């Protein structure tokens, strides 16, 4: 029987620890070398497990990757072949390739890119299949991104069944924050043959974790716990749990629904023997978790119950500041937009980077990578371009929602295969080659067509959310009724539904009232999700309802009721604008700015109040009357004001004073100082391109090519990184003699700066003075 059949028809006992057994025999270091030097010892260990009742053993390949293995004498292929042969000789029914973590974090937590990691796993995948493994166990992972990467590499390069397992803490999360249920959803969506947990804890502490996995799993669940928690005693690691207690707890996990059980660190053949026959006699069933929805690495959102709000703000259409942020790779700004919507109640975030003049493929996947870990909400990947969509789906840590496919053949044939491959949910728009149909019937037919085509690709109708398309009532007063009727009809046919709201009120006054009324109506009709401004308040406004139900011809009633609805209430503020900046009072400053600002005084407000206020604050800081936090707070107020002025008074691309590339040099992660300079100088009107911390020279040079700055600002905090700073300054000066280089940070002095031909500033305030002297 093939291994894939076996795991879906019966209970299997896995092996216990290999490392523990090798240490017992005196092998502490570089265990993978044994694969070539003493394979008979490995066979002996595997055989002991088989005799104890293990149906499956894992080859000694945990560390067989190019980063970890010692390849000075033997090739990776030698090591893998040796391990698999040794395991096969044990007489085990099934031999798995054991794939452990690379021991390095993937970008953005570490430097290793997804593609590089993929290659490291793909290399192992080819060898695993070549030497005849029955399957693969990816195990002891802490980072969902790395697990996905490995799973993709094994799935795309072999036809082997892949079992996936991570190490969890009692909280039900890995130390990097991956939630057990989200892991299971993500791995099975990508085609994992089984999901589960290993290492980390003893079986007595795993009940909650296993239950969480079982609640969503649709594939067999595996557990390989440690023999309790490790303790160091007399220079060596010991595991305290006895085999009897271990066996009792493992049996309880098996009864809960885990059908693949074994042990990890500290377990021995005696442990396996203790429970193997009891476990095999339990009845078999594949779990049938009933979760229906999407997830990030940390949060799962079900498509059941009340209407889910999808935040719409990360979309550059009509948002000049976001456009600029995309152009500058200013992910802080984008992250801010995401977090702000999360705080306002968004449960899913739409990410759209579609705009002229950018590499959407790079931008969308980059935005996903930079935001997903911090925001932790599931994402809706919003693009019409298949290459950009695929790049983003590849790196996204979770089960994504794709926005969107439509009834056009071109769209169906490019998007559906991607939805299938990455196990994503998908929004289907009710339009096709003929455009948007004017009637309910044709829209529903398109929905059916999308569902039929999706099914041909093996995509369940459950994974489809149909968007009936919201058209403005100002264009045709029946558009509201058509929309609502289409929703009713789709519901009858058991479709999930989703829609964007705001288009309904296009061209009308008091849009929030009409949008809010529609929000209530669609929620009452059980729409699955809505793409909205999360702060939108629902209402029962009668005038709006009449219009939305088709009873207000040419919107006359609505316009009569709402034309000239008073603007936002004006707020009295006692401080001057300049004082608001100086005191860091953002709310008051913004309220006042909205009243005071006109097209004519915009320049004056910037010069006199915003920059002037920052100057006042800078002087106070120099006199020691206020400290850094106050300096930055004022800076934030200034930034909020500048953003508002730019948005309202200038067309796009208003020239900044100068462009500055800023970075903490290689080897240094201390970026407080750099961030302060970035914030303060940014608010003095400089375009700041932030490369982050620990930045090698080559990246600074590449950024200069890309952004053509007038200045480069570098920070270093440790004596050990001063050499790296010297190297970067010299490289920049050599390649671009006309670019000004500013340096600062705890270990940098004016003398040092002079010696390398750079300009020194002792703090953010001084950096701005230097920049103003050069470009002001």
């Amino acid at each position: 029987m093939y291994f894939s059949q076996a795991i879906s028809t019966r209970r299997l006992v896995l092996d216990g620890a290999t490392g523990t057994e090798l240490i017992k025999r005196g092998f502490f270091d570089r265990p993978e070398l044994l694969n070539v030097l003493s394979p008979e010892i490995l066979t002996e260990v595997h055989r002991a497990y088989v005799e104890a009742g293990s149906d499956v053993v894992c080859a000694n390949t945990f560390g067989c990757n190019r980063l970890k293995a010692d390849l000075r004498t033997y090739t990776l292929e030698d090591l893998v072949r040796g391990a698999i042969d040794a395991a096969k000789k044990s007489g085990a029914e099934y031999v798995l390739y054991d794939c452990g973590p690379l021991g390095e974090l993937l970008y953005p937590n570490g430097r290793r890119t997804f593609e590089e990691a993929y290659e490291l796993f793909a290399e192992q995948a080819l060898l695993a299949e070549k030497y005849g493994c029955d399957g693969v166990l990816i195990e002891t992972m802490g980072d969902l991104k790395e697990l996905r990467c490995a799973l993709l590499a094994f799935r795309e390069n072999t036809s082997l069944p892949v079992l996936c397992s991570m190490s969890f803490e009692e909280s039900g999360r890995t130390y990097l924050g991956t939630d057990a249920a989200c892991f299971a959803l993500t791995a099975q969506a990508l085609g994992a043959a089984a999901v589960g947990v290993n290492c980390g804890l003893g079986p007595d502490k795993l009940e909650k974790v296993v239950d969480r996995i079982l609640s969503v799993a649709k594939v067999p669940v595996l557990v390989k716990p440690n023999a309790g928690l490790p303790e160091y005693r007399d220079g060596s690691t010991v595991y305290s749990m006895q085999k009897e207690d271990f066996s009792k707890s493992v049996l309880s996990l098996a009864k809960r629904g885990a059908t693949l059980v074994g042990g990890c660190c500290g377990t021995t053949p005696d442990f396996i023997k203790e429970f193997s026959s009891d476990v095999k006699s339990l009845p078999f069933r594949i779990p049938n978790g009933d979760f229906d929805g999407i997830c990030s690495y940390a949060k799962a959102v079900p498509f059941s119950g009340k209407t889910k709000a999808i935040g719409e703000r990360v979309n550059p259409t009509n948002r000049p500041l976001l456009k600029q942020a995309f152009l500058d790779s200013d992910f802080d700004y984008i992250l801010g937009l995401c977090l702000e919507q999360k705080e306002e109640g968004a449960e899913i975030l739409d990410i759209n980077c579609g705009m002229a003049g950018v590499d959407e493929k790079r931008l969308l996947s980059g935005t996903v990578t930079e935001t997903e870990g911090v925001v932790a909400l599931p994402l809706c990947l919003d693009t019409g371009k298949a290459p950009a969509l695929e790049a983003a789906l590849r790196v996204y840590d979770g089960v994504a929602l794709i926005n969107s496919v439509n009834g056009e053949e071109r769209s169906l044939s490019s998007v559906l295969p991607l939805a299938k491959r990455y196990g994503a949910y998908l929004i289907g728009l009710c339009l096709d080659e003929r455009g948007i149909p004017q009637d309910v019937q044709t829209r529903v037919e398109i929905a059916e067509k999308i569902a039929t085509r999706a099914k041909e690709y093996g995509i369940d109708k459950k994974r489809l959310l149909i968007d009936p398309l919201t058209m403005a009532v100002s264009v045709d007063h029946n558009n509201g009724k058509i929309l609502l009727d289409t929703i009713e009809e789709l519901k009858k046919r058991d479709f999930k539904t989703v829609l964007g709201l705001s288009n309904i009120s296009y061209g009308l006054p008091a849009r929030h009232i009409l949008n809010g009324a529609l929000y209530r109506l669609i929620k009452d009709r059980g729409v699955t999700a809505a793409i909205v401004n999360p702060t939108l308040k629902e209402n029962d406004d009668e005038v709006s309802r009449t219009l939305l139900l088709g009873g207000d011809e040419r919107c006359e009633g609505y316009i009569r009721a709402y034309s000239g609805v008073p603007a936002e209430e004006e707020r009295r503020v006692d401080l001057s604008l300049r004082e608001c900046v100086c005191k860091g009072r953002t709310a008051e400053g913004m309220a006042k700015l909205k009243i005071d600002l006109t097209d004519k005084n915009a320049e004056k407000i910037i010069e006199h109040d915003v920059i002037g206020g920052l100057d006042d604050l800078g002087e106070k800081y120099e006199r020691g009357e206020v400290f850094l936090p106050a300096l930055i707070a004022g800076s934030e107020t200034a930034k909020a004001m500048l953003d508002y002025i730019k948005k309202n008074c200038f067309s796009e691309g208003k020239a900044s004073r100068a462009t500055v590339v800023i970075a903490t040099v290689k080897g240094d992660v201390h970026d407080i100082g750099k961030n302060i300079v970035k914030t303060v100088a940014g608010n003095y009107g400089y375009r700041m391109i932030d490369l982050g911390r620990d930045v090698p020279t080559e990246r600074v040079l590449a950024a200069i090519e890309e952004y053509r700055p007038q200045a480069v600002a570098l920070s270093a905090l440790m004596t050990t990184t001063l050499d790296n700073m010297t190297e970067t300054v010299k490289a920049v000066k050599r390649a671009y003699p006309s670019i000004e280089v500013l340096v600062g940070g705890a270990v940098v002095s004016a003398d040092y700066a002079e010696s390398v031909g750079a300009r020194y500033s002792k703090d953010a305030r001084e950096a701005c003075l230097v920049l103003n002297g050069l470009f002001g």
Partner: protein
Amino acid sequence: MNIKEIGAYLRVRGEMDEETERLIRTVYPIAEGTLHRISDRRFGLVRTKEGLRLSGTDVTLRGELAARHFVECDEVYVVLLTMGMESERNIKSTYALSPTKGLVLDACYSEAIERRLDAYEEEKRKDGDRLTSRISCGYGDLPLETQGPLLRLLSPEKIGVYQNESFMLVPNKSVVAIVGIKR
């Protein structure tokens, strides 16, 4: 919370202004609410020509600082403490919404690490150990390069700590410290 120490990270000189204090009190609970993880081991010290070797390993603490600091000790604890990836995320997300608060939180985490290490030492003292103060690689003449080998003795990946190519710890809010156990 040691508000003065947080102030020092924020380069507050002299009397702290009210606004800074208010900010610290606002964001400190985020750092306080973050779980830390510890991996530690106890080693004997072998005095050699090169310095103090941790027994059973090939790691040696070189330089005068270590020699002086552990003069009364035959054993040390090597301890890795991390505020976890959650601290990185919290700093990033707080910074994105408000740089001011993000920077203050960064400083709060630095202080929180010290408090947790204090608590760790307190536990050891309760168990009867007499301890020296703690030192880390990069202090005085104790080479920063020793941090990597020390780290590897502590199975850092089990608590989610990594060292990158530039010898820096990720999550950034992690520390490797050495505490002497007095005879």
